[in-house]
């Protein structure tokens, strides 16, 4: 019974991630784009969809992952998201360098660009902090507060970036993904009471 429930939850998680990616991969716009542009766009969609899994792992909503393995899986998926962002930005730069340079310099005509660029910088800082975690020497509580603040910027920035784009994502699956990613993040951050000065005793 427990296994069945765990399986169902994982199927649901897989669907939340896979459906928007699959629908973007079926977009009619793709037939007018070259391979690099297609990969760049889909990497962005996949990176955003994977953000749904991250708070679930930390909040203990992903069944079947042993407590001691949670962090490792969270870090692995975090690495995938970071790689997806890199492929997204580099691929778009290869497709149209001036558009990406405008975005990075915050002078783009498109409203969604600065949201994406701020989200990118936040996740770069997250990645650097993860790489240097040992030497930074933050207490777990401080680490959690900083990490939560930064990934919140990435999640909100990416959600707005995505919603404002007229691109390959199918509108309904895009809206649902945005709501779900933001909702689980808010739920887990609230559960963990990140903003509390002292960790809650259990």
């Amino acid at each position, binding site marked *: 019974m427990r296994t069945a429930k765990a399986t169902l939850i994982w199927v649901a998680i897989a669907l939340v991630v896979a459906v928007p990616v699959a629908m973007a991969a079926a977009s009619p*716009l793709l037939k*007018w*784009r*070259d391979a690099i*542009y297609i990969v760049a766009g889909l990497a962005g969609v996949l990176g955003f969809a994977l953000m749904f899994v991250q708070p679930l792992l930390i909040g203990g909503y992903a069944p079947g992952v042993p407590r001691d393995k949670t962090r490792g899986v969270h870090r692995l998926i975090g690495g995938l998201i970071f790689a997806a962002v890199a492929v997204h930005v580099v691929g*778009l730069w290869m*497709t*149209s360098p*001036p*558009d990406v340079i*405008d975005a990075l310099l915050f*002078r*783009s*005509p*498109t409203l*969604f*660009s600065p949201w994406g660029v701020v989200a990118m910088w936040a996740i770069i800082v997250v990645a650097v902090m993860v790489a240097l975690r040992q030497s930074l020497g933050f207490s777990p509580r401080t680490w959690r507060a900083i990490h939560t603040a930064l990934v919140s910027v990435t999640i909100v920035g990416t959600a707005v970036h995505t919603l*404002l*784009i*007229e*691109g390959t994502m199918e509108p309904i699956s895009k809206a649902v993904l945005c709501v779900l990613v933001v909702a689980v993040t808010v739920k887990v951050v609230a559960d963990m009471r990140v903003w509390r000065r002292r960790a809650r005793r259990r």
Partner: protein
Amino acid sequence: MTSAMLDRRRLLVAGGAVVAAGASGLLLPAMAQGLQPTRSMPGGSNNYRPGAPIVDRIGGGGFWMTGSVRRAGDGVPLSGQRIQIWAHTTEGQERDPQSHGATLTDENGLFRLEMPQIVPTFGQPHAHLAYDSGTFETVFLRPIMPSARDTSLEAHFVLQPA
């Protein structure tokens, strides 16, 4: 007494004329400025390829890019002006040479060039247009289609002498 009244009347008329002249004098500079020149739009020059050839049609056509070119100030239509057009279409990405073409304005300062259907790229369905022939200041436009399903798009230039 009568002459004094006439003088006063004359004075009033003259004064009124001075006031009217002054008011029109204030208005004149604003009217002389007239039609303001179009400013280049952010990102307008992205993926520009200098020297796009003048063509009857870009690729297979099916989509109409139309617009006008006028002189700043008096708004006189400018004929024979070369307008370059490019976009991400069903036949190529913005950078591809086959996505670029140019046309000339007619005697009424109007231009229209048939091109393949524009499709959304980099988050918006949009086109790029350039005037850079040198007689007037260079202007790059980046109009956005209200809907990706539209089969035409307008862009208007008001140019000032270089």
